[in-house]
């Protein structure tokens, strides 16, 4: 089994995700980028789970999918509320937390 390809795919996905989080202004797209990062981690976990023949990685992956679903739910809820109050979802306009 070629572990390299899977790991390469995962790292590419991870980098795309990180780029999305840092560079995108749209809050929904940032959430999607976070999903990408989480799924690249899932791929990593599954790769090593298959290679080592243990069920731990699968369990973790399932767990992460469940948490990610919840996280997206909460995240989209936040975005919806922000849009109602500010009429924008651009994160650059939401800089009230500046110290």
């Amino acid at each position: 089994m070629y572990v390299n390809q899977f790991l390469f795919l995962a790292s590419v996905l991870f980098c795309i995700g990180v780029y999305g989080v840092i560079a995108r202004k749209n809050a929904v797209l940032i959430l999607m980028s976070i999903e990408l990062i989480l799924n690249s981690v899932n791929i990593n976990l599954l790769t090593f789970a298959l290679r080592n023949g243990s069920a731990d990685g699968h369990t973790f992956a399932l767990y992460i999918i469940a948490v990610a679903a919840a996280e997206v739910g909460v995240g989209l809820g936040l975005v919806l509320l922000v849009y109602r109050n500010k009429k924008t979802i651009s994160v650059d306009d939401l800089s009230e937390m500046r110290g």
Partner: protein
Amino acid sequence: MSLFAKESEVLAPLATGWFLEHAWLIPVVPAIAFALIILIGKRLPMKGSELGVLSMVASLVLSAGAAYQWIQRVNSAAEEQFVTPVIKSWSWWQSGGLDFGIGQHIDGLSIVVLFVVAFISTLVQIYSLEYLRGDRRYTHFFAALTLFSGGMLAMVLADNMILFLLGWEIMGLCSFLLIGHWWEEDANSRAALKAFFTVRVGDIGLLVGISMLYFSANEWTQENLGVSGFSIRGISAWALSGEPNSTVIMIAAIALFIASIGKSGQFPLHTWLPDAMAGPTPVSSLLHSSTMVVAGVFLVARLYPVFFVGLDILGSGGNLIMIIGGITIVISAALAFVQNDIKRVLAYSTVSQLGYMMLGLGAGAWLPAVFHIFTHAFFKACLFLGAGSISHSASHHSFDMKRDMGGLRKVMPITFSTWIISTLALCGVFPFSGFFSKDEIIDNVGNNGYNTFMIIGLLGAFMTAAYMTRATYLTFFGEPRGASAGDSSHAAHDVHATPDAHATHDSHGPHESGLLITVPLMILSVLALGSGFLNATPFGESWERMKLWVEPRAVEVVDATYSGGPGESLIVNLPSAEESHSKSVCGSATPETGVCFAPQLQHAKFKWSKAMISMVIVFLGIAISWILSVLLFTRRDPRLVGLTQRVKVLGLGHNFLVNKYYLDHLYEKVIVHSIAHPISRAAYWFNQNILDGILHGFAKSTRTISDWVYKNVDQRVVDSTVNNSATFTKSVGTAAQPTQSGKVSQYGALLFSAAAIAALVLVIINT
């Protein structure tokens, strides 16, 4: 081997039984009953009194069983065999290498006193059911009464001095509670305090004595008997072993005797006893007949070897115990003549009779003294309960003979006849019980060579007969006076009881008391008449039961081994058979082959001629006193009435007696003032000048120091540290401020670069 066989032929194994082995239950039952009465007594149908009565009945049954089995044990012993006490001991607590035991020591003496205490307590509790009916603190009264008996029982069967002290102190506490039962009246609580503190003066002697005995005897007893220096058995053997230093044991004996003086109301600490009459009459009865005051006599009888050796009993000349006993007999009997309160007459009579017991113990008449405890308990309890019966039913709670009594023999036939029987017993008229015990004491005192004290004893007998005749005449003969004549107008009600004690009691004229009161009286009067026959010396050896059962045999005991283990009986056995037939060396020389537990004492041969002398003296006392009483109180003979006012010398004497030899003045005005007042003044001066000076100086220096600390330590060190850390934090915060841009993407970039650096570091570390 043959020697061993021979010895076991001589020695019969001693019988024992359940009641002897479990005698420790006797005080435990009242103790439990006390706790129950306190906890749930008020909710019970009879307000807790039934628990008290039941527990005393149980104790009585247990003591009677133990007495029966003890007699069997004595009967199973050989002629000259030492009847081993039934001893059980457990470890109570340990501290610093000292082992404080708890346990029972059952021998003839404990059996007699246990039985008497349980018996009198039972009757007194039954009597109290009626006497205190409707009292405000009915439940508490029974609780204290039960604990009181429990304390005495524990003290009597104690196997060591620590338990003895415990019982002794429980009694001291309960006597305080009971004497001050009606504490609403100032006089009663004062009497309770006086009793408590006077006895405490003596108690110090007990503590000193116990400690001295422990530290001087412990080594010997551990080595030879395997018991601690608190053990009564160990102390007894040690005292007779020829081991103790004569000065040490003398001081220990004197210290213990001071405790006896306090508890047993001997001169000069007898002043609390008459005041203790402030308590309810059943309490006086219990206190004066079988418990409390007997405790002091019991202490001397229990540790007799210590006193025997320490105070040189049977030596030439008098010793401290005899002198105190002799003085007490005469002075308290003299005081009884000037009392108008019937209970006070009886109180002084008790003091005087306790003097007889002490005299007997001091003169080497151990058995007669113990026998006198036994007989005295019955007739004195009967007299006190009789006085209570009179005040309860005839004189509206007054105890004043001159004002509220007189002519009661017709209305109270049962009280009258029991009173007469007990009075005759107290005076020592043949064949009443007092004759057998008191006469034996006087006889033995003379027989041991103390003629002066024998004369004092006879004088005491004369005075006893005279004052009891006076009291009897004033109470039961002549014309009714005051309350007993149906006159309830004057305020006798303020004398001894709380108002609610009267509420249930209607105030019609004098009448006989109810069955709960008269039945105990009748039982006690039968014993006052009959108990003397247990040791009736005039009828020969076979009647001397008490001597056989109670007196410890003065034989040397060898191979005294302790079988060990908690709860195990001590087995002391195998006296040397050859020596037992010769005269015992116990008490007179150092035992060579074993240990002694009792000194060898002699018994006077009874002679009718000697008895007749004392009988004549007693009858003379009764006759003279009767004639004088008739002349003085009924005929109002002008030659006698007001004699003390007319003749100056007699007036002075009368005053001297009325003021109780000014002893109370001496104690309160002279001793307390001269000691306590300078002490308090000195303490005040010390307080003002030295303590306050130290305090002020200390405060001043503390202030100076704290000022310096404030300026230097607090301001400079502590505050500057705090300020500097705050400043540092502030500058760091200012420096880091730009990173807080509020832009989420910037935060994300920081987060991921930090994660990337951390990952790099991890990779570098792991490779």
